[in-house]
């Protein structure tokens, strides 16, 4: 008796799992940073993200993925085909089985909010900091800043 009960329970659970694992045709994006929430489970068409394993685009039914964000431009194409560009400092991107996507950044801003002249100044400032850095750690820190400043200039131009 209890075996039958268990089997029924397991079968019901299996059916539910199979249902919840169905790939969705819609992609729901949650894109947030410490400073602002840009999308909260909003349906979008495509997302391009820069990551340490290379930049990649995400469409609905993408294979589940985890990646670490690299400083660069996240591009979001909404359902009307409108593209919006954001600059992310760093963070993570999660693509789930149900086609929901989470992009979580430490700091993110619309590319239009970047001051190109300021970014260029920062680039040269950190380049000189890199060449005058004494120890390995200071050198590595300056190199990160140069990398980010280069990405900023490229994104804002």
């Amino acid at each position, binding site marked *: 008796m209890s075996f039958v009960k268990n089997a029924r329970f397991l079968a019901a659970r299996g059916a539910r799992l199979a249902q919840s694992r169905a790939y969705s045709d819609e992609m729901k994006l949650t894109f947030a940073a*410490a*400073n602002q929430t840009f999308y909260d489970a909003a349906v979008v068409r495509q997302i391009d993200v820069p990551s*340490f394993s290379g930049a990649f685009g995400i469409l609905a039914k993408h294979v589940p993925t985890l990646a*670490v964000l690299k*400083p660069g431009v996240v591009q979001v194409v909404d359902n009307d085909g409108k593209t919006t560009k954001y*600059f992310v*400092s*760093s*963070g993570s991107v999660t693509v789930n089985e149900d086609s929901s996507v989470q992009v979580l950044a*430490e*700091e993110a*801003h619309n590319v239009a*909010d*970047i*001051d190109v002249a*300021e*970014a260029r100044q*920062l680039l040269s400032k*950190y380049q000189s900091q890199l060449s005058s850095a004494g120890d*390995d*750690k200071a*050198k*590595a*820190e300056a*190199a*990160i*800043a140069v990398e*980010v*400043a280069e990405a*900023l200039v490229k994104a*804002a131009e």
Partner: protein
Amino acid sequence: MTNAWRAAGITYIQYSNIAARVLREALRTELRTDAAKRNASHVKFTPWANGRPAPRQAQSES
């Protein structure tokens, strides 16, 4: 990973902090001041004794 910063003993969290700071510095002037406030994080400690917060510490921190 073969990153130079990782070899120098910098973690991704530290990398992330630097990247976020540089992004804040590159914002348009009207946004920069407000963004700079996020460069520092503040932690407030309140020690508890006998199920109540110790008042002296709480006052000195506020």
